[in-house]
């Protein structure tokens, strides 16, 4: 797993780069993804499959929105909140976006401190990320209950095309589930970092592999992906 870092020895075995590197990596008998740890590759492949799932959701949403004869409800008005007597469009969604981006920032720094073997800061930043994530899910729950109270259902709503509700609940629900699972794993990994599992190489409950700080980066990939999906949902569902 542990690869050789840059150093005098490293020069001799530096694999080729560019297109020649791609050909060399893919042609290598044992490992196509030279120098990338196994766990990271697997997470990337999982995220690729998840990309297709969310891609299909957004695609179905596009299809029903394009093919309906009823007017699509205006998200700018549907998701407006009344603050001090006047409606502010999309404000809750904007705040949720900033919260999720902030959680990505703290996550990226947690990965960085993890590789520096800074247990306290890594655990603290992971907990901050989990807190932002929980905050996001809480605001989503608020948004869902507000819409349900206003009469939005998967089969209808007061403003227009009936497909609005099903697309909304499916897409944001699936994304919220991802965030929730992420928060749980953030808490678990934060605890393991804090105990020093990754310094001692202690085995985890989930995969029974020896713990190491790569796990923080792998979890980071998942978390950034959740943020990434939100970027697309924000653009296509809320802003379009």
């Amino acid at each position, binding site marked *: 797993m*542990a*690869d050789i*870092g*840059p150093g005098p020895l*490293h020069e001799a075995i530096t*694999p080729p*780069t560019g*297109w020649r*590197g*791609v050909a060399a*990596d*893919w042609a290598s008998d044992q490992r*196509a*993804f*030279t*120098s*990338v740890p196994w766990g990271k590759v697997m997470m*990337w*492949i999982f*995220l*690729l499959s998840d*990309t*297709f799932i969310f*891609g299909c959701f957004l*695609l179905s949403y*596009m299809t*029903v929105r*394009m*093919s*309906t*004869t*009823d007017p699509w409800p205006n998200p*700018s008005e549907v998701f407006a909140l009344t603050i001090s007597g006047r409606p502010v*469009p*999309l404000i809750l969604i904007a705040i949720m*976006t*900033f919260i999720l*981006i*902030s959680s*990505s*920032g703290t996550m*990226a*720094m947690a990965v*960085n401190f993890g*590789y520096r073997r800074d247990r306290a800061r890594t655990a603290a930043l992971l907990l901050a990320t989990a807190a932002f994530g929980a905050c996001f899910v809480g605001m989503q729950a608020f948004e869902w209950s507000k819409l349900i109270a206003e009469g939005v259902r998967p089969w209808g709503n007061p403003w227009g095309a009936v497909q609005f509700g099903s697309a909304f609940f499916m897409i944001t629900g699936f994304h919220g589930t991802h965030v929730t699972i992420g928060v749980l794993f953030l808490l678990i990994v934060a605890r393991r970092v804090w105990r020093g599992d990754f310094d001692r190489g202690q085995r985890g409950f989930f995969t029974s592999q020896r713990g190491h*700080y*790569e796990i923080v*980066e792998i979890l*980071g*990939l998942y978390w*950034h*992906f959740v*943020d*990434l999906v939100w*970027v*697309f949902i*924000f*653009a296509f569902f*809320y*802003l379009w």
Partner: protein
Amino acid sequence: MAQPATLAQGQQHSIKLYLVIWAWLFVLSACSYLVDYVGLQGYVRWSLIVALMLLKAGLIVAVFMHMAWERLALVYAILVPPVLVLLFVGIMVFESDYTLITRLRFFGAG
């Protein structure tokens, strides 16, 4: 990028890099929100939404997910397949146009 592309494991970059990207993501998100707040419509709105979305996605994937420092073999394996979704989008655009026309034709215009 602030750091040279290296093969090193355990991705060591300065904290400052992450803070700069974080700030940029804030600015870009604020811009996306302003597109709606100002009330731009039509092609200006759609192109701005897509452009800002792609910029944000690019920053997250390249820096936060460290794709900018990975081997090209992995980068292509992960980033090329999603492009095929665009083909699917194309197919479904035709399909939904057809559905819409059929509905208008048989159910009467709205």
